[in-house]
């Protein structure tokens, strides 16, 4: 049991592939009202990973890339880690090419692997995802795959050499929270040693806290912060929720009961055993 102190209890380190990740809230960089608000939101969140992507650009865009400059400055000063993604890819071959472009561009082996199988829900394609993960691991990438909560898929991704898996909470950008709570609980229970991150679908800090209370190791989100009325304050709220949820997980949650059980002792009430019965 932790020694009682008046200060904030320390969270345990998150380690992935031997590297300490400096935060359990991971944050995307899209959809903010301005680069400045994005920068302030990063400051408020203190994210472990910061996600970016790679796209075709004109010469003007390459020369005047204020968003990237701001992200790069933040990475230099904060210790947060860059996590390029393969968003928009629909096949293993597309994702492998984009991952290699990201590695060439950023000089990082980390990749958030996305292979979309269905455009309406942006549900990952498990088959192409696994093909891409195996190839990218073989090429030396540290692959963090965005996947569903399918237990067999997650196990195969881990077997392929992914140092963590990132099941969705709900479809990207919906803010619906943990849609398949039982499936996610089962996943956590069946793969207790795996690093697992809830990626996508979180809309409220309480949903992030719920994920952390279930024992997930981190959460990755973007829209819930970027589209808040006050993204900076929301980033701060998510950071507090994630830390609170992790503390709760570390502390050990009580076991739920069906029947009520009084927390105040009955012994000592003035009418206790006054009727002469045992």
């Amino acid at each position, binding site marked *: 049991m932790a020694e009682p102190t008046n200060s904030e209890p320390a969270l345990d380190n998150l380690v992935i592939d031997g590297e300490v990740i400096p935060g359990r809230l991971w944050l995307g960089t899209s959809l903010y009202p301005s680069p400045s608000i994005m920068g302030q939101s990063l400051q408020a969140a203190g994210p472990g990973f910061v996600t*970016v*992507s790679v796209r075709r650009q004109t010469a003007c865009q*390459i020369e005047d890339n204020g968003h990237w400059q701001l992200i790069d400055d933040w990475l230099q000063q904060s210790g947060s880690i860059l996590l390029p993604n393969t*968003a928009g890819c629909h096949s293993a071959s597309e994702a492998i090419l984009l991952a290699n472009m990201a590695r060439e561009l950023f000089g990082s082996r980390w990749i958030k692997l996305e292979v979309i199988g269905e455009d309406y829900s942006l549900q990952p394609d498990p088959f192409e995802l696994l093909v891409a993960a195996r190839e990218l691991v073989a090429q030396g990438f540290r692959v963090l795959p965005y996947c569903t909560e399918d237990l067999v898929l997650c196990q195969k991704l881990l077997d392929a050499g992914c140092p963590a898996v990132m099941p969705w909470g709900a479809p990207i950008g919906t803010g619906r929270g943990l849609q398949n709570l039982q499936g996610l609980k089962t996943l956590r229970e069946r793969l207790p040693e795996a690093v697992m991150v809830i990626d996508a679908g979180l809309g409220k800090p309480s949903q992030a806290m719920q994920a952390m209370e279930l024992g997930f190791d981190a959460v990755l989100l973007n*829209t819930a912060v970027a589209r808040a009325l006050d993204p900076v304050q929301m980033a701060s709220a998510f950071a507090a929720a994630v830390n609170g949820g992790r503390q709760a997980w570390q502390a050990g949650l009580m076991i739920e009961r069906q029947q009520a059980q009084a927390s105040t002792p009955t012994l000592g009430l003035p009418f206790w055993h006054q009727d002469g019965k045992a």
Partner: protein
Amino acid sequence: MKIRINGEWLVLAADSSEPVMTLEQLLLARGYLEPDSSSKGRMVVARNQVIVSQPNWSTTGVEEGDSIDVMGAITGG
């Protein structure tokens, strides 16, 4: 010579199967490089979906029908 750059067709010179310029010359002409051939910003270049590292830009020829992609960092989730 017609090539595609970032998905858009571009006419560079009369039809020819011989390379008429290097990748470096193309990038310079399209404004991606400073006059001293240094990059104006962080970017990665692919020719026909094969990445060409910066040291090889000056020795890689651009040929008829090539597809050149110039990619940079954007925000992402």
